[in-house]
């Protein structure tokens, strides 16, 4: 599809222009690597001290951490255009420029920003997945790999939906972006750990409202061969779809927001 070609082309150009400032690029990449490394180190130290969390052992915890890391930073790598960059697009009137081109606004927004520095964070996540997989002695089958791919993909779409909320807020000039950040980044920090760690209100929040648990933890638990938090076996393939449903709901809100933008101007 030529949308993908457009995206790849934009990505190449953005990376080329970012590499024009190599020192800054390197420093920021390093900073992010250290940051994510620090998060992983926290998990390692906790596991070292506490050895297990409820029925989850060290390998399980690394696996969940890796799953969330890879999913989240994959989204951050490609989806910056509709979150961090979007307020800038609105402010500078770049959104109008998008409207004058025969492409979707979301497509162009996503093409406008790519964050290749996140590759380091994704790498850390992959390392965590490998370590977790070894320690938890996962017996990998093609089915399990497929399920993991589905979980990561649907999780990405979920997070993309959360990112889109920021875009919607910036169109309506809502200032309280921090609340949404709580959901997005709080969700990330929380759901690095299996959902049964948390008391009921938080469990409900991350299952019903921002369904991290359904997209990542249920499939994750199945791959680890552990109980599925009370969900039936067949739900394993279906629960990640909740991420897509979430995205779809937010997408509708985004269309509404664009309608509003086009009737009130900038």
């Amino acid at each position, binding site marked *: 599809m030529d949308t993908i070609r457009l995206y790849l082309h934009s990505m190449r150009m953005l990376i080329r222009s970012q590499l024009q400032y190599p*020192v*800054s690029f390197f*420093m*920021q990449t*390093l*900073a992010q690597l*250290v*940051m994510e490394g*620090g*998060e992983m*180190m*926290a998990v390692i*130290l*906790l596991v*070292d*001290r*506490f*050895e*297990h*969390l*409820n029925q989850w052992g060290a390998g399980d915890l690394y696996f969940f951490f890796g799953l969330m890391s890879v999913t989240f930073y994959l989204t951050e790598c490609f989806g910056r255009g509709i979150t961090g960059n979007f307020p800038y697009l609105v402010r500078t009137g770049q959104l109008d420029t998008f409207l004058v081109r025969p492409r979707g606004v979301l497509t162009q927004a996503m093409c406008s920003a790519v964050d290749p520095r996140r590759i380091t964070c994704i790498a850390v996540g992959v390392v965590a997945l490998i370590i977790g997989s070894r320690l938890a002695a996962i017996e990998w089958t093609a089915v399990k790999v497929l399920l993991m791919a589905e979980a990561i993909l649907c999780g990405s779409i979920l997070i993309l939906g959360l990112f889109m909320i920021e875009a919607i807020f910036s169109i309506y000039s809502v*200032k*309280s*972006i*921090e*609340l949404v*950040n*709580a959901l997005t980044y*709080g969700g990330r*920090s*929380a759901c690095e*750990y299996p959902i049964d*760690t*948390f*008391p009921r209100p*938080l469990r409900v929040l991350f299952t019903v409202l921002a369904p991290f648990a359904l997209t990542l933890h249920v499939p994750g638990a199945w791959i680890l061969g552990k109980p599925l938090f009370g969900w039936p076996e067949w739900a394993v393939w279906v629960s990640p779809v909740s991420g897509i449903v979430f995205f779809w709901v937010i997408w509708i809100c985004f269309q509404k927001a664009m309608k509003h933008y086009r009737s009130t101007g900038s």
Partner: protein
Amino acid sequence: MKAYLSAFRMRRKMELQYRGAVLGGVICQVFFGLILVAIYRAMYAGKPQEIPLSHITSYVWLQQAFFRMLLASDPELMDKIRTGSIAYDLCRPLDLYGFYYVRIMAQKMTGSLLRAVPMLVIAFLLPEGWGLMLPASPTGFVWSLAGLFLGLLCVSALENITMGFTMRTLDFRGMQALLNLLMMILSGNILPLTLFPDSWQRVITLLPYAQLLDAPIRLYTGDTPSSAVPGILLIQFFWILLLTGAGILFWRANQKRLEIQGG
């Protein structure tokens, strides 16, 4: 002296203008705090530790409440550098080091106090095993306040050096980002230092990063007994003197360089 005070007051005014963002920020931090506490509670349930759970939860809440003090962020500065109006600052007949020192301190204090108070109130009101404990002892509490202030001086000095680097390289993102995450990791924000392996703790607590929050928090919870206070103060004073001295030298060199370049 007057110049410093007015700079201080101006900063304070600006911070207070962001009132709307504060409420959102507080809710955000409380949310994070609840998540972290839930994780540690679950971990403790499996394997209780020497350090009581209430110390850890208090650690978490105090860290979240004073989170703003950790970060180096001056959005104005970024714009100034980008537009080049930083040159005006450099031309002012003020002692630049002192000016920025006060500015950094004011930012940290006003930014955090505004959020800390409501957060701490909420933390106190949480049920047993979830929230902030009362100080271990009255003297411990007093020393923790002293420790907090000294820690603030220490980290402001540290950040001032970074600011100097930023001026020099005009790259505001790189160095500050690095400093921020070193702060977050090594001051116990991501994981309480009290949960680090003991051998690691012995080294990390000596570093300047740990002085801002970890040191005062330990005094508050009693993890550091009052008898160990002189040692703590020594470490803090050492870093303050070292970093301030290094900072002044660095800025002097910077200023000379800029004067030669012509700005």
